[in-house]
């Protein structure tokens, strides 16, 4: 047994570096860089209706009649981003008379439960259109394929390895997010400056691509990356990590792959008595408020929650037989900058509310989102 263990260990050690999984794809990087700069089609004041690229899919022959039942298999509502998104979704449903009933099943972040959920919805026989927000790509592909055989399917947020859905709704993507933040740092910090990169978790596709894009740009700009640390999205841990780095040397900029712990990172500078450096956060209210109050040099790239509205709109189009952008509905991915910060800061909204929700004009705003 000992030998087997040693052999396994040796194998792992010798082979582990081999797996250069492709989260640093120059082609995809270039494509998303282009999409960020592209002029999206559709109404400029309603970005959730906009799309980049002009390919459309006809839905008239899908044979769904209004009012139809829309079923939604949700990966989970286990973080504030998804809570805001799901609220957008339920509020959007009320805007469409063609949607008769809306059935929501929550997979609690488990692939297995989501596979069973989709099969359960198919077994119930009530659904006419299905929206899926997959927990992970590979695991959910077969279940989505099964659903495609029974009804039109719309996928959003993370994708699946099949083109059977009517359309896949998503913003530009992870490279785009990484590019926006890192370019801002490159523009505002002198060459040779120290940048700390804070990451949530390893191995998540969207986060890995954000990191690889950010790193590429920071390296090219000749900045010195003092460290890349995983915070697990934990405020206390984030604060501790930043405090430790401050004891070892100066930091000129902080890049983050997601903004949930941005305020904790800022507080580490404040509590240790340092100037707050150039910061990359996200569109959460607590960060935007801090930015405004302290007059930071900062940017907030977004992964817009308004895509949850778009998924419902796509479903309504399918029911009404209208064409939808597809097979990919690429939404714009705006960043919040100093210029438009004031439009998004809203002290009436909860601290973990995502400002890029496209929900300000909806009927139950701000109450349904927890605002006063």
């Amino acid at each position: 047994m000992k030998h087997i263990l040693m052999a396994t260990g040796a194998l792992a050690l010798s082979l582990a570096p081999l797996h250069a999984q492709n989260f640093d794809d120059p082609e995809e990087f270039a494509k998303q860089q282009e999409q960020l700069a592209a002029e999206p089609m559709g109404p400029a004041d309603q970005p959730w209706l906009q799309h980049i690229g002009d390919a459309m899919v006809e839905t008239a022959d899908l044979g769904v009649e209004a009012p139809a039942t829309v079923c939604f298999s949700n990966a989970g509502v286990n973080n504030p981003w998804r809570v805001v998104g799901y609220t957008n979704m339920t509020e959007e449903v009320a805007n469409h008379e063609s949607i008769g009933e809306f059935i929501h099943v929550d997979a609690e972040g488990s692939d297995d439960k989501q596979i069973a959920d989709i099969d359960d919805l198919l077994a119930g026989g009530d659904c006419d259109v299905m929206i899926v927000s997959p927990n992970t790509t590979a695991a959910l592909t077969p279940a989505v394929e099964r659903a495609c055989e029974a009804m039109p399917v719309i996928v959003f947020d993370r994708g699946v390895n099949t083109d059977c859905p009517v359309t896949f709704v998503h913003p530009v993507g992870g490279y785009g997010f990484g590019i926006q933040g890192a370019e801002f740092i490159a523009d505002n910090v002198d060459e040779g400056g120290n940048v700390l990169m804070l990451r949530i978790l390893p191995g998540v596709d969207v986060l890995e691509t954000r990191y690889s894009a950010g790193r590429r740009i920071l390296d090219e700009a000749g900045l010195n990356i003092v460290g890349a640390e995983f915070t697990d999205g934990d405020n206390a841990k984030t604060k501790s990590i930043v405090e430790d780095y401050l004891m070892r040397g100066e930091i000129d900029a902080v890049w983050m792959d997601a903004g949930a712990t941005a305020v904790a990172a800022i507080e580490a500078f404040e509590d240790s008595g340092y100037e707050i450096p150039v910061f990359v956060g996200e569109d959460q209210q607590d960060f935007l408020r801090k930015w405004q109050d302290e007059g930071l040099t900062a940017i907030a790239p977004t992964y817009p929650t308004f895509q949850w509205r778009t998924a419902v709109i796509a479903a309504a189009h399918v029911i009404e037989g209208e064409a939808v952008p597809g097979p990919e509905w690429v939404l714009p991915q705006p960043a919040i900058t100093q210029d438009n910060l004031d439009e998004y800061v809203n002290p009436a909204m909860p601290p973990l509310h995502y400002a890029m929700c496209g929900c300000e004009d909806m009927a139950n705003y701000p109450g349904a989102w927890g605002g006063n």
Partner: protein
Amino acid sequence: MSESTHGIGGLTFDAKKRARPPELNVLFALILIIGVFELLGAFLMGQSFLFDSADRFDSFLNEARLKIIILQVSIIGIIAIGSTQVIISGGIDLSPGSVVGLTAMIAMSFAQVAEVNGNPNPKAVFGPAWMDLPAIVPLVVGLSVGIAAGLINGLLIAYTRIPPFIATLGMMVTARGAAKWWTKGQPVSFPTEGYASIGQGMMPVLLFILLAVLFALILRFTVYGKRTYAIGSNEDAARMSGINVARHKVLVYTIAGALAAFAAVVLSAKNLTAQAGMGVMYELDAIAMTVIGGVSLAGGRGSIVGTVLGALIFGVIISGFTFLRLDAYYQEMVKGAIIVGAVVLDQWRQGRMAAKM
């Protein structure tokens, strides 16, 4: 056992006082729960839970839902078989969830195809020489990982006298770390068809039933089974009667590890991917299944039949909540309440049995 009354030293056997087998109670509970869902379904949803109420089915039962219920629990059910014999032996195993994660990652790394749609596998872990291997390779590698983890658990518990709770807790943390370290947290995907077929369709159910029958027989009729019960009922007595308790415990935990690894193989084959986070909390679900199935945490009592029924109750409840569209956090809380409730019931039953004697 003979029906006639016979007495030894004043003790008489009275058939009326013989306790109903606890498995029967679990079966009643299962039927009761299904009944509750049927009633709620009729009142709240206007449709039946398990019986066919839609026109497009031409059979009596809603076969699709039955399939989901059993498919949903079969993989954790395989783990629960291992947990059952651990708990009967008086121990507890908190590591299977993490062992599932670690095993899935490692086994899947040996089950990859070289080419996906004509391109080199984008998630390749090893070089081309390690791809397109026959399915037996990942299976054996996977089982070895589980056996190694179980063996370490068993050795720690049996020979250093570390409480099982702590030893397997340590393994839980360690194995999860190792699972993340294996590919630095990145998922491993694209298995060969041979490997994938282990988990496709109703295969997981079939494997679960086969293993359940096998271990039900083993625990009931073999020396291994009798020793497991003996150690769980009274470890000192078992030692006095000549059982090598330490060696037997090592065996029990090793088998539990192997079953967890097998569950990992089936799971990763079913999902066509392996992730470091796979199997989180499975150990608790597995323990819940055994406890609901009447296995006593004090050791010495319970059976595989009970655990299988417990697993079914578990599946019915999860599927029933989805059927009733109950919010996820209520689901978790009700699950917690059911676990505690099952233990309360068990205590009460034990108390009554003690009173009868």
